[in-house]
């Protein structure tokens, strides 16, 4: 019998866990329910009451990107919350860890499965969104051409240009990437919370709480660092929020992209880096707690 050399880190092991997690997740109804709901939302904006085309495109983009944002954030939390606790409850974790699998790889594999799931969801929704946007854009372009068939060339060009610029703004793509990274952050954070949470409800409630506080963190932080007049209890509370919670507002770029703003590359790169940083830290913390966990 060959003595297998033990590798302290093995991509094959992590990959096997990732794929397994992905299969497990795609069997859960929550993924399909959320996905179909989001797709319906995006698709239905084709039928909305017609305002001017600028208004229509704006609302289409807002609703679609809003749907994507909520879908990925919600899925990240809901899908991840039960992963490790389920394995512990079903005892499947014993069979896995009885193999030469370091606990860190187990945590990593689970998370990677969720991140893959989120990526697939994001891609599907983006594709749907782009198809709807393109279809509407073409329809409006043709209508415009028809209505302006007698107008001078210059005006027609101006009009077409106006239509095109209100439709697809390429900056939407980095905006979507940042939405995805926010979801990754939430998934890693949920995984971390689930390693010490006692029940599923606890994890979900904590995550919802974190989601809202995370959007207020910026205000709390600035107030803490600038205001001197507040009492020490307020200061302590603000410090607590500023240090412990991630600033989720930094990941909301789409609101402004849709309004027509351009994203400087430096901003995108820094935001992306921050998202990756958070995701990594929370994963490490999850592994740290999990190493000491009594099974």
């Amino acid at each position, binding site marked *: 019998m060959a003595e297998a050399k033990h590798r302290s880190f093995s991509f094959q092991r992590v990959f096997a866990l990732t794929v397994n997690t992905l299969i497990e997740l795609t069997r859960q109804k929550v993924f399909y329910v959320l996905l179909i709901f989001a797709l319906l939302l995006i698709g239905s904006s084709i039928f909305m009451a017609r*305002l001017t085309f*600028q*208004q229509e495109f*704006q*609302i289409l983009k*807002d*609703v679609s*990107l*809003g749907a994507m*944002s*909520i879908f990925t954030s919600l899925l990240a939390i809901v899908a991840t919350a039960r992963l490790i606790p389920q394995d512990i409850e079903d005892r499947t974790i014993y069979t896995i860890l009885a193999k030469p699998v370091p606990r860190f790889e187990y945590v990593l594999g689970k998370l990677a499965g969720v991140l893959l799931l989120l990526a697939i969801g994001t891609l599907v929704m983006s594709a749907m969104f782009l198809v709807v946007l393109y279809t509407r854009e073409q329809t409006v372009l043709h209508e415009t051409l028809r209505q302006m068939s007698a107008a001078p*060339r*210059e005006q027609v*060009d*101006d009009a077409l240009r106006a239509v095109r*610029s209100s439709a697809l703004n390429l900056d939407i793509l980095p905006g979507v990437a940042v939405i995805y990274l926010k979801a990754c952050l939430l998934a890693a954070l949920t995984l971390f919370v689930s390693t010490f949470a006692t029940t599923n409800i606890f994890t979900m409630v904590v995550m919802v709480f974190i*989601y*809202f506080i995370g*959007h*207020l*963190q*910026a*205000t709390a*932080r*600035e107030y803490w*660092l600038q205001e001197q007049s507040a009492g020490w209890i307020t200061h302590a509370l603000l410090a607590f929020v*500023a*240090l*412990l919670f*991630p*600033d*989720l*507002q*930094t*990941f*909301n*770029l*789409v*609101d*402004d992209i*849709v*309004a*027509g*703003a351009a994203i*400087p590359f*430096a*901003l995108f790169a*820094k*935001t992306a880096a*921050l998202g990756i*940083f*958070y995701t990594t*830290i929370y994963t*490490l*913390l999850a592994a*740290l*707690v999990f*190493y*000491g966990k009594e099974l």
Partner: protein
Amino acid sequence: MIRFLLVLVIVLVVGAAKLPIERELSAIHRQEHFRGIEFNLDLREQLGQLGFIAALSGFRSIVADVLFIQAHVAWERTEWSRVLLLFRQVTTLQPRAILFWDMGAWHMAWNASVAAMNDRSQPRFALRIKAQREYFAIGKDFLERGIKNNPERPQLYESLARLYKEKYQDHARASEFFAKAAAIPGASSYDKRFSAYELSYCDGRERGAYQRLRQLYDAGENERLPTLITRLKFLENKLNIAQDQRIPDPGP
């Protein structure tokens, strides 16, 4: 126990480390006039609990859209104060959306003002004029604040120019703002022309207007639109331009 303390320490250290980066990103957001919605009690009152929370949680633009649709309905019902209120909220939520500033201004300066002028319930003409001018001012204010939040985009300059031209008959300012718009990439092709037209209506600025119009004329065929030619001829006569320097008459 040790593990718990270790985790706590890591969280705090990482928390402190990330603060400068987050502050920097927030600063960039402010600089770009992105408005991550601040904890604004007024806005909370106006939007109601649910709307405020939704706006706060990253669905600002959807909340703005919903309010915008409500403003549309209010307009159809000619509830002008409600239209104004909603557009104030909408532009607070989405200061980077040109559309909202533009429409807010339009509803005030073009629609509400007319309604005020024709208001049967106000018998005194002077007071109707006063109301009308107040609406002009509110519309102008929308555009000016919109420009402040979006200085690098031409549309609101164009709208402000139009407002000066049509509502205040202030051709000097109109010309100024058309020119500002024309200087920005992405401006409509007619901005330069309109700026020159407006200038031509100003007493004492005929020489400058003539030079500009002549430049445009010389630029090419596509600038030689009927209005341009008419104004040019008018100025040629007014300024007594030498015959050999005048533009030829348009053919039959």
